[in-house]
């Protein structure tokens, strides 16, 4: 079981309110991703749930029981840190055994759980090495191993992949998703990378300045962003946002069109512009169109076979049904 409920949770550092009162429910077995730009309070929120920071006001319920004042150890949660936080002078085996030893688990049971975790994470042949002798990805797996042997009610991940190189990150992303499918344990995952959020989450919580901007499934957020911030944050490349006359035409303060919802043509269309940088990825091509008079550049995603070059004059036509409209407060109309 691992249902976590936050009720009016607030965090102040002195005068500064980092997290204004916030309510959130995380259901048992869910993979929840906290995502937001750096400094948005997502890590602080995770540390509040973990018990590493004290809440200034509000309650944290774990499985219905009030855990607001419980020590981190008593909450039954396991955390994977950004720096992995492995104990450098202990072997991998001892690192993984540490929480079990602290919990007073018997030696044979310890060995059984360590073997199981090591096998699941491909660490069996590294058990007697020190963390310093492992690569980044292996250290990450040891940190996860140390978390899973405790059989916690929920896992907390604090930007666990940000120290890995791009290829490894994709691999570990799959491994963590796989782990979640296998264990079916609640996981809370903090990241600033919206690709990680989109690919892994059952539910994404978008945060900005400590406030929750939107909570929903990845597709929900993608298809129906609640406001301009979420619209701009979710999706890669970013959604094109224009205001002014182009927006007024649709009865909105701001309109947003995703790059894949704009047709680009050399013959004619709605908005005229000039191709700036173009990126050909083979499967897709991205064009950064300038001089449209709407925004500095408009990003367009087109088929891989479209060949346009720097300086070509083009016309852009948005897919009318897929235009997002926002009012003066930035909220969705």
């Amino acid at each position, binding site marked *: 079981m691992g249902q976590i409920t936050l009720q009016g949770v607030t965090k102040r550092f002195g005068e500064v309110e980092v997290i204004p009162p916030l309510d959130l429910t995380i259901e048992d077995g869910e993979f929840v991703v906290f995502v937001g730009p750096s400094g948005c309070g997502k890590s602080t929120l995770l540390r509040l749930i*973990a*018990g*590493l920071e004290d809440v200034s006001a509000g309650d944290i319920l774990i499985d219905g029981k009030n855990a607001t004042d419980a*020590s*981190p*150890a008593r909450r039954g*949660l*396991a*955390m994977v*840190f*950004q*720096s992995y*936080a*492995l*104990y*450098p*002078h*202990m072997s991998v085996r001892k690192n993984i055994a*540490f*929480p079990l030893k*602290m*919990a007073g688990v018997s030696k044979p049971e310890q060995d059984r759980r360590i073997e199981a975790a090591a096998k699941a994470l491909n660490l069996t042949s590294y058990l007697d090495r020190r963390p310093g002798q492992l690569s980044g990805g292996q250290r990450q797996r040891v940190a996860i191993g*140390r978390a899973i042997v*405790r059989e916690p009610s929920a896992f907390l991940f604090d930007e666990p992949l940000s120290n890995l190189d791009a290829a490894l990150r994709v691999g570990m992303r799959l491994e963590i998703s796989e782990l979640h499918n296998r264990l079916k344990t609640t996981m809370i995952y903090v990241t600033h990378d919206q690709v990680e959020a989109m690919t892994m989450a059952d539910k994404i919580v978008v945060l900005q300045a400590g406030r929750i901007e939107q909570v929903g499934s990845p597709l929900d957020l993608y298809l129906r962003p609640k406001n301009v911030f979420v619209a701009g944050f979710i999706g890669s490349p970013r959604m094109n946002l224009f205001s002014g006359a182009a927006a007024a035409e649709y009865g909105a303060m701001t309109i947003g069109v995703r790059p894949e919802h704009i047709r680009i043509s050399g013959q004619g269309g709605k908005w005229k512009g000039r191709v700036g940088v173009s990126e050909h990825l083979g499967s897709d091509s991205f064009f950064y169109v300038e001089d449209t008079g709407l925004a500095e550049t408009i990003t367009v995603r087109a088929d891989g076979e479209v060949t346009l070059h720097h300086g070509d004059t083009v016309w852009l036509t948005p897919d009318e049904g897929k235009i997002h409209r926002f009012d003066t407060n930035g909220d969705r109309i």
Partner: protein
Amino acid sequence: MATRQTQGLARLMRAPAIILLFIWMIVPLCMTLYYSFLNYNLLNPGMTSWAGWFNYQYFYSDPAFFEAIGNTLILVLGVLFITVVLGIAIAMLIDKPIFGQGIVRILVISPFFVMPPVAALIWKNMIMHPSYGVLADVARFLGVQPVDWFAQYPLFSIILIVAWQWLPFATLILLTSLQSLDTEQMEAAEMDGAPAYSRFLYLVLPHMARAITVVILIQTIFLLGIYAEILVTTNGGPGTASTNLTFLIYRAARLNFDIGGAAAGGIIAVILANIVAVFLMRAVGRNLD
């Protein structure tokens, strides 16, 4: 970078410093060795003659010799124990953010700036003196007989003074080590359910192992040669109860004017110091890898 040419050049550039250091070390050593085989007394400096191993035999057969070695070891180990244990405790205390942290840290470090004879005299005359020392006042206040520290516990008194002087050094080194401890590791241990004493035992102590080794090695080098504190307090006494090897050599050289005997003692001390060094490196040196 490390081509044969640059290596050769580097060796050439290093040579003057190394040669100078070598001469600096080897000349006094050779002179001491030479004197240790001479009958050479300052009361009769004209009458020097070859003595063979006599000086060594004489020094070795001195009844104070083994006592001095024992005292030296007790002194070194006692001071090491006090400074390391208290050093860890104080370092952990002043590592916490407290009001007036800067001043507290300066106060903690300040004993190190007091010269050894001055510190020893202050302890002798103002703290441990049986009639007007602070400790005597405390004893009288409690209604017990004041302790005559230097007469009753001479070696312990000296250990106390020297430990007081070296405590700041140990604290400082251990504090810097403590500050480099990763806070995420401590938090991870907290999440893993480790109570404070387990975190200390399994994380803080292993993390500080290297710093503790440095403290032990450096202090041992200096503590083997403790001399000024003994000279101004007990003068090696009562009898030879607080005489260490250094002080025994001093006695031979300056009280008996026996240069040959003192040189022999010096050579013995060098050999003993090297034996201690070998054991020490065996015991704690692997922490430095």
